[in-house]
Every structure is written in C-alpha cells, then in structure tokens.
C-alpha cells in the first residue's frame, strides 16, 4: 500500500464530497465483527439468515396485502344484472366450514408451539456443544423429544384439514368459480397452504440434515429460520381467517 506525506496539509474535503465523515477509520461496516475472510462464524450466519428471512417475508406480506385490496374492492363493487336490468350487489356470503377451520387453527397454533420448542432446544444444544466435547461430560439423555417431527405431522395435519375444508365447501355447492366470495376463500386458503407446504419442506430439510449428520450449527440455522417463518404463517392464517369470517 503506497503511503505518502503531503507537503502541504490536506484540507478537509468540500461539503459536497461524498462520505466526508472520514475519521472513524475501520468501524461501521455491515460485516463488522467478522473474524476473518472465509467461513463466517455461527452468530454472523444466524444473523444473516434471520435478516434474509425477515426480508423474504416482505413480498409474502405484499402478496396478501394485494389479495386483501382486491377482496375489499370486489366486495364493494356493484355489478350489472341483465335479468333485472339494474345494478346489484352480487357478493353472497358463503357458509364457511367453521368447525373444520377451528380444528385447523388449533392444530396450526399447536404446531407453532412445537416448532418453537424445537427451536429453543436446538439453540440450547448449540450453546452447550463445546462443553459436550469434553471427555466424560454428559448433558444427560441424548435422546430428544422429536419436536421437529411432531411439527411436521401437525403441519401436514393442518394441510389435510384445509383439504377437507375445501371438500366440504364443494359438497355444499361452492366451487372456485361459484361466486366472488367463494373464489376468494379458495384463493386465500390455497395460497396460504402453498406457503405452509414450503415450511413443511424446509422442516423436512432440517430433519434430513439430522440423518445426514450435517453440522449441528447449520441445522440450528435451518430450524431457527423455519420456526420464525412458521410463526409468520400461523399469524397469516389468523389474519386470513379473520378476513373471511368478519368481512364475508
């Protein structure tokens, strides 16, 4: 690195100059605290993955904001009826399968609890891992309660419940194309179900890393991020349910 000693003292840059708060030399970068080039440490990777997830939730939120605006607009939209030659309101509320929705909601909230327990358990194990490697030290039972597996089962249970709810709607004569309200019910529940299926797949990845004996820290990050995603899906479901129940 070339260094030089100016013969005349350099002046402070003019106010228009970019980044003129020069003095703090080496602090303040986003990657501050990174130990060295190459593999970042666990805390940095976890922070980065969580930040990535937070950002990834934004477009999902926008997707449902957009659906909601379409929902509200369509609900208030009068439509021309050629039969009576007048403008009518054609938004007919549909009988929602409320019992099934209630069961599904309980299942999903329960899965949110189990995934949180799985997240805390694995965080604990990561924290204790250095101690465990000391010969003769045991952290007690190595067999874990399969919180992750239970979450996957509950998640699949929720998806099955949603499928049954669609079946019940269809049995009552409400299909995707029956009317605007039924279209929206299928749309909102369907898109939510696809997103939750993504969460189940992520948990399966986390589970498969158990089998493949990937590093515990990598598994921790997958489980942690998926758990937050899962909580978001549970909240989103509550919101969708409220929208369908209160504004139908």
């Amino acid at each position: 690195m070339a260094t030089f000693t100016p013969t005349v003292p350099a002046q402070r840059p003019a106010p228009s100059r970019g980044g003129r708060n020069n003095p703090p030399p080496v602090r303040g970068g986003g990657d501050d605290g990174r130990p060295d080039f190459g593999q970042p440490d666990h805390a940095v990777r976890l922070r980065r993955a969580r930040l990535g997830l937070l950002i990834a939730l934004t477009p999902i939120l926008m997707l449902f904001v957009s659906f909601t605006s379409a929902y509200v607009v369509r609900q208030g939209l009068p439509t021309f009826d050629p039969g009576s030659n007048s403008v009518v309101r054609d938004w007919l509320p549909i009988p929602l399968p409320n019992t099934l929705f209630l069961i599904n909601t309980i299942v999903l909230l329960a899965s949110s609890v189990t995934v949180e327990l799985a997240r805390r358990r694995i965080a604990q194990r990561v924290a204790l891992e250095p101690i465990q490697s000391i010969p003769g030290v045991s952290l007690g039972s190595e067999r874990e309660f399969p919180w992750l597996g239970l979450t996957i089962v509950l998640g699949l249970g929720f998806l099955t419940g949603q499928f049954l709810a669609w079946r019940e709607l269809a049995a009552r004569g409400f299909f995707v194309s029956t009317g605007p309200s039924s279209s929206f019910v299928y749309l909102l529940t369907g898109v939510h179900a696809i997103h939750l299926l993504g969460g189940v797949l992520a948990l399966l990845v986390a589970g498969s890393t158990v089998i493949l004996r990937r590093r515990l820290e990598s598994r921790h990050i997958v489980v942690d991020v998926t758990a937050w995603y899962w909580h978001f899906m549970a909240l989103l479901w509550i919101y969708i349910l409220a929208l369908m129940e209160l504004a139908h």
Partner: protein
Amino acid sequence: MVAQESHGHAAPQGFIRKYVFSLDHKVIGLQYYFLALTAVFVGMFLSLLMRIHLVWPGASIPLIGEIKPETYLALLTMHGTIMVFFVLTTAPQGGFGNYFLPIQIGAPDMAFPVLNMMSFWTTFLAYIVMLSAFFVVGGAPLHGWTGYAPLSALQSAGPGEGLGADLWITSIGIFCIASLMGALNFITTTLDMRAKGMTMMRMPLTCWSWFITAILGLLAFGVLLSAGILLLMDRNMGTSFFLPLGTINGVLTGHKGGSPLLWQHLFWFFGHPEVYIAILPGMGVASQVLSTFARKPIFGYKAMVYAMLAIGLLGFMVWGHHMFMSGMSPYSAFAFSVMTMAIGVPSAIKTFNWLGTLWGARIRFQSPMLFAIGFVSLFVSGGLSGPFLAQPVLDIQLHDTYFVPAHFHLIMGVAAIFGIFAATYYWFPKMFGRMMSESLARWHFWFSFIGTYAIFMPMHYLGMAGQPRRYSQGTEVAYLRPLLPLQKFITYAAIITIAGQLIFLWNLFASMRTGKKATDNPWESTTLEWTTATPPPHDNFGGHTPVVYHGPYEYAVPGAPRDYVMQTDPATVAAH
C-alpha cells in the same frame, strides 16, 4: 431454506460447477448479462419487424411472411415484455449488480450464493417459457406488456390469447419469484456484508442504486405475482376477478361482476416502480462514471442518495397516472397528477448534480463517459415530457398516441440502455481483463446517440398529430397519410441504429480475445473493484479483507500525490 449457504465456499472445479451452476456472483452476473444480451437482440429484431410493417404494410418478410394485424400485436407484446423484464430488469441489476455489488462493498460473495444461482436459473426458465409462447398454437399473446383485462383474461379473446397468453403469464410469475430471490440477496448483502469502514454513506452510488432497486423489486413483484395468479384463475378456473359480464361474438363468456380496472390498479402498482427498477441502476452507473471521468467528486453525494430514496418512495404513489383514461375519479386523478409532478423534484436534483459534477471539470471523454453523458441527455429529454403526460387534461389528448412510446422509450428504454452501455464500457476491463476498442466505441456511441434521437424525437410529433399507438396500420387512414414520410424516416433511423449495435457486438466479443491487456485500474477510479486483480479472483480480494477509509469519489484531493485517493488508501487519514 437459506441457512446452509455460506460465502466461504471453495473455488469450484470442473466446467459445470464453474460456468453453468456456479455459486460465484461474478459468473452469475455474467450469465445474467449474456441472457439480457440475447434478449435485447430478440427484442430489437421484433421492433424492426414492427417498424417495417408500419411503413410497408404489404411487405412479405422472409420466413415470416406478411405481418397480419394480430401478428403485429403479438410482436409488440413480446417486444415490450422481453425488453422490460429480460433486458431492463435483468442486465443492470442482475448482471452488473450481481457482479459488482459484493466487490464494491468489499464482500467475498453475495449473502446467499445458492439462492443467487437459483435466482438466475429461475430467470432463465422464465425466459424460455416466454420465448416458447412464439411457437405454440395461436402464437404469442396480443395484450401488450401491460396485459390489460379482459383481453388478457379470456382464452377465446384472440388468436394468441390461448396457450400463448398462459405461457406469458406463467413466465411473468416465474420471473417475479426469481426477482424476489435476487432482491432478497441484494438487500441482505448490502446490509450485512459491507467491509470494515464501508458505512452506508461511503458506498458508491451504484451500490445505493442497486440497493434501492432491490427494495422496489421486493415490494412490487409480490403484487404483480398476485395479479398474475388472479389472471390465471380467471383464464383457467372460471373465476371473475377481472371479468365483467360480456360476450364474445355474441356468446356470453360466463363471467360476471369482475373489474378490469382492478387489474390495472394491481398491474400499475407494480408497473410504475418497475420503471424505476429499470432506470435507477443507470443513475447509479452514470453518477459513478461522471465522477470518475470528470475527475471530480460527485456533486452532492448525500443529495444523490436522498433523491434516489425519494424517487423510490414516490414511485409507489403514482401508479394512477397510467389510468387517467380509465374513468377514475377526477379527484384521485388530481392526487396522482400532483404526486407524479413531485417526482420531478428529486429527478431535477439528480440532473443538476450531474451537471454540477461536470461543471468546470477536465473531462476525459472516454467511451464510458460518452455513454454516461448520453444517459443524462436522454434522461432530460425523456423526462421533460413526463410532466406533460402527468397532467390529466393533456394526457386525455396524448394518451395512446405515439407521444407515450416516445416518452417512455427515451427515459426508460434507451436511457437505461445507455446506462448498461456505460457500465459495459466502464467495467469490461475488470470483467474480462482486456480493454475494448475505443474507436469502435466512439462509432457505436454516435450511431446510438444520434440514431436514438432520430427515432424517438419525431414520435412526439406523431403523437401530437394524433397517430395512435398499437395500431398495426396507419397508411390507409386519410389524416395519418401526411405522417407517412415521418414514419418512414423513423424506420430508416431504426434500421441504421440497429445496424450500429453490431459494432458493439463485434467490439464486445473481439475485445474479449484480442483487446489490449487491462491494468488493475485503467480508469484511475477509486472504488474497491479497482483495488483487486483483473479479473477478480474467486473470493474477490485474494484472501484478505479490504478496509475502507474514504467515501467513494475522492478525486482531485488537494495535497495528494495523485489526483485521486482509493477508498482503501489509509494515507490521507492522518492528513485530514
């Protein structure tokens, strides 16, 4: 989903991992760039066919035959879609952003390299699906790149509205997902992977522009995806989100109660930010290049950052100005109009800061600088017609005339393309280790610059004279016949301008093999990509972490031995 990735991956071995399914952001950037390069020539070829048809409607084109009105609509749909999505969104952000954002902030790679690779290949898939629409029964869709319902929402609405339109919407949906993955990566990388000392306010303006573009994409593409889902449901599942009661050839469509206006709202809520997604990276590159070749600090760095943020923010509040003719309430039209004209303020701040950077400078008129100045020129020329179209009263006259294509081609199309050219000439030495031919670049610049104005300036006049856009023929209409010579002039100009692009293509590929070897910092620039080897090694900085001591545009520093101070140069810290 993302957590197993880390940027500490080892340099890949083997052709497939190194060049095809590469995790290296530099390779992915080049993949994006070459995808956009093929797309821009496809798009240009389509526009050439349209220009020929407009002035010689009976002409038979080899292999294609005579262009029918519906073929013309298919051409304009695919021209617009390919150019907007696969060129203007892909090259500046996916291409140069991917290649240079990590290097400019001193990171070894993107935050999530696997996601980055998936983002490119998803874009590639979308591109293939889009192009396949040409080859299915009925051909490509007719509904324009804006896909207005009900034309886009009914299978039987036209020859291209069957499978072709389904493929079009599917492609757009896939592209949305790819862009969201890319935006997620850009934002995380910018926030979390900057080198020591690289504060946000020390980032090059290119990084700011990619960062803001990523935020716009993150918020906008989800909405387009939602609109696409609703449209596909209307087309294939019998719903009526966008379809009111109506008939086709006297037969009821079976849909009722939907709102075509809803599509327009959802589409333009995405569509207007998309315009800034295309142009903001160009602004960043122009700022970087102007400062470097004027050998002066950028005038008003902070104002430039805040102006870009303001443009991004306001960009979400003006979508209604595309819909003045849709029968919306005049009160909301007024609000959209005022917000739109408010964008003129940050845009003017940027323009005057660029001029302020050039003022009194000893300018080095090298090829990147020519294109950056061309960018500013086109940005002003195209931008000035914006306030006309922003007024509902004037827009009612000018809407759907050639005035509108003239406006948006200048400011969003060609200005952004000039940004891509400036970036290409500026970063080519770093990417390929060789210099491009300066004389060919000059020829290319004057062909493109004069050609562009020759094409699009007369279009304003055509628009004011009442030439409607999207019509395949105007030669038989009495009041348009006097405009035919001008139309012919535009077609000749287009042919010459497109021919001029072959110079660029030759220069690009010939220089890769035979260009003069480039040094590490041929433009005497200050940002981090010029501190590393040419081309950069796999981990960008060859095993060490850069430390940043300065803002990005320290040119003409008093007392320094050279007329510039690198961002990594610790020497002047003591002197300040």
